[in-house]
């Protein structure tokens, strides 16, 4: 995995929002890379900064109130996106980096036929004529597994089911063969049988086009199914990162361990779940020191005093955790062996 050349390199990304009650540090010093053909998962509960991270990459953050702070860097294939001119950014969005959102029902224009919306992307980015765009669009619908693509092409969004609309969103996102696809909770609104179809489809298309996939989800099951590596976010920061296998079988950070312990697994029904107490704090006032400390079962004095760094666990630099106690807690989460 490490041999893949990095296509997207995010370094020290900080996105803050000015609100009435103070500055919300939604994303606060996030760094990661995604290689060609790789699938990186970003996991965490709501309010952890996952979506803002994704939107920041394409600079879709409304400003004001949002602001990507100086010192942040987003390199796409060596090019600094945060310094790119607006025209260049428009070229990159859709052509090189595409995004799909959680709610396919609200992401499509309800008064335009779906074919028209696919055509728009094709004509704008690939400069196709109307008839070329139509045949390319129908071919795309077939590729994402829509039956009767000719017929569906002239449907309005409300004629189609959620699973079909999500396929259409994927078709639009893929219309320009992007090198990076950012998928923000692409299957959260869908039923499990349809979710399985969409995840299969993403994996198939990734194999075929070799694109990098940045998958944002709160569902550790989805992560296990499709991701090579995982970034766990809490409080606008990365708290742990590693291969999917490592994160799910040997979580080191108490937050990751807590997430896994919260899930009712295939284990004994008589065993009580062991959830993380409390809720995610407001991004306006993260606790000082370690941001997880007031929910952490093993927090101690130094956790309140100073902020733990995101440090490698060993020689292998792909396995990082942000906890003072890492090394001393260790071991897989209870009941997972």
């Amino acid at each position: 995995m490490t041999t893949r050349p990095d296509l997207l390199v995010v370094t020290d990304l900080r996105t803050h929002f000015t609100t009435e009650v103070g500055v919300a540090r939604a994303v606060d010093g996030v760094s990661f890379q995604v290689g060609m053909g790789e699938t990186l998962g970003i996991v965490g509960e709501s309010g952890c900064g996952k979506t803002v991270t994704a939107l920041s990459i394409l600079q879709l953050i409304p400003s004001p109130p949002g602001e990507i702070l100086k010192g942040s860097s987003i390199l796409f294939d060596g090019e600094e996106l945060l310094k790119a001119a607006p025209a260049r950014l428009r070229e990159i969005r859709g052509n090189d980096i595409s995004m799909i959102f959680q709610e396919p029902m609200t992401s499509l224009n309800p008064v335009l036929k779906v074919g028209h919306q696919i055509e728009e992307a094709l004509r704008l980015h690939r400069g196709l004529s109307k008839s070329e765009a139509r045949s390319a669009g129908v071919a795309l619908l077939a590729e994402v597994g829509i039956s009767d693509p000719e017929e569906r092409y002239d449907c309005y969004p409300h004629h189609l089911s959620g699973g079909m609309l999500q396929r259409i969103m994927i078709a639009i996102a893929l219309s320009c063969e992007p090198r990076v696809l950012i998928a923000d909770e692409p299957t959260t609104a869908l039923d499990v049988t349809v979710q399985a179809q969409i995840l299969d489809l993403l994996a198939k298309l990734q194999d075929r086009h070799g694109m990098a996939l940045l998958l944002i989800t709160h569902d550790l099951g989805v992560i296990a199914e499709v991701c090579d590596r995982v970034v766990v976010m809490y409080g606008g920061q990365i708290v742990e990162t590693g291969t999917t296998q490592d994160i799910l079988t040997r979580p080191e950070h108490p937050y990751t361990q807590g997430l896994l312990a919260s899930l009712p697994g295939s284990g004994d029904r008589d065993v009580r779940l062991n959830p993380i107490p409390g809720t995610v704090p407001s991004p306006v006032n993260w606790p000082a020191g370690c941001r997880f400390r007031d929910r952490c079962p093993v927090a101690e004095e130094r956790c309140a005093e100073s902020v733990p760094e995101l440090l490698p666990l060993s020689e292998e630099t792909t396995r990082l955790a942000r906890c003072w106690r890492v090394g001393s807690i260790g071991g897989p989460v209870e009941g997972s062996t």
Partner: protein
Amino acid sequence: MTFDAEVASDADGKSDVDAKSFAGVNGGSGADVLFDVQELRKYFPVPRGVFGRSVGQVRAVDGVSFRLHRGETLGLVGESGCGKSTTGRAILHLIEPTSGRLVYDRQDLAELDRAQIREFRRRAQIVFQDPFGSLNPRMTVGGMLSEVLKVHRIGETGADRSGRVQELLEMVGLHAEHAGRYPHEFSGGQRQRIGIARALAVEPEFIVCDEPVSALDVSVQAQVINLLRDLQKDLGLTYLFIAHDLAVVEYVSDRVAVMYLGKIVEMAEAEELYGNPLHPYTRALLSAAPDRDLKAGPRRERIRLSGDVPSPIRPPSGCPFFARCPHPGKDEECETASPLLEEKGPNHVAACCKDPLPRDGG
């Protein structure tokens, strides 16, 4: 006669289905049956045009029968639109069922007078998915809870009621001082706790939990699941637990029923259903759920369904699952005849007329 009729007529022993086996599926003798749902149907009209002329019917629930025993949790799973929420609401008479017989604690709901219906409403409560949408934004939590108590004439004086409100808030893991706050001041998990407190206010014995944890983050979801289980143990509650999350349902339920297109296609004890699913739909559903157990070795083979659930406005005449069924043995019989819910094993019924395929790897 449809299969549901046969399912429901177990008591007289005249039906084709072996009465004994059915009592077994429903967990033994009739003595501790709290709720007996027989052949429940709920059709919604499809309006069209200016005058809202009905041009068809959505068969949201199409002949559902099950029994709930005191103190148990029956899980109801299925994909969106399968009729699980409608079932939950129809048995509480929150929506009027089109047909079917509902017997709660040996009383037929159709025969109750107004006072008795009010008493039924007190004994049978519901917790909704969206905690915010189900709370009045302009009322404090304390005000809302004491209104519930007032309506049901619980507590003589205002002081009695506010004492009970504090007790309720503490029961669901909130604090007495939360009584003076408004719903928007709470997080999603806290609101769901308030929704549970509202249901508990009238000391019910039965609660329909309609996707109670679906909108919550995993850590909060686990907190609420623990709370529901503790309350069940302490208060002896009976739950109908409706959810689409298969792992959550497995964890909380004693028995599980799987719904597809308005019908129950399989029902068994939780461990049996998850360990030995017989209906092709149940198998597909279980295999579609992402598996985060990476230590389990090579991935089990997945069954991928194609297409979407058919429209409940024009349900297929035969087996509702026919169009998507991956069973290699499906034939014209499946396409034309609606399969009956039959006993396939001890305490295990499924509605499939083909023999289940052997499963590899156990």
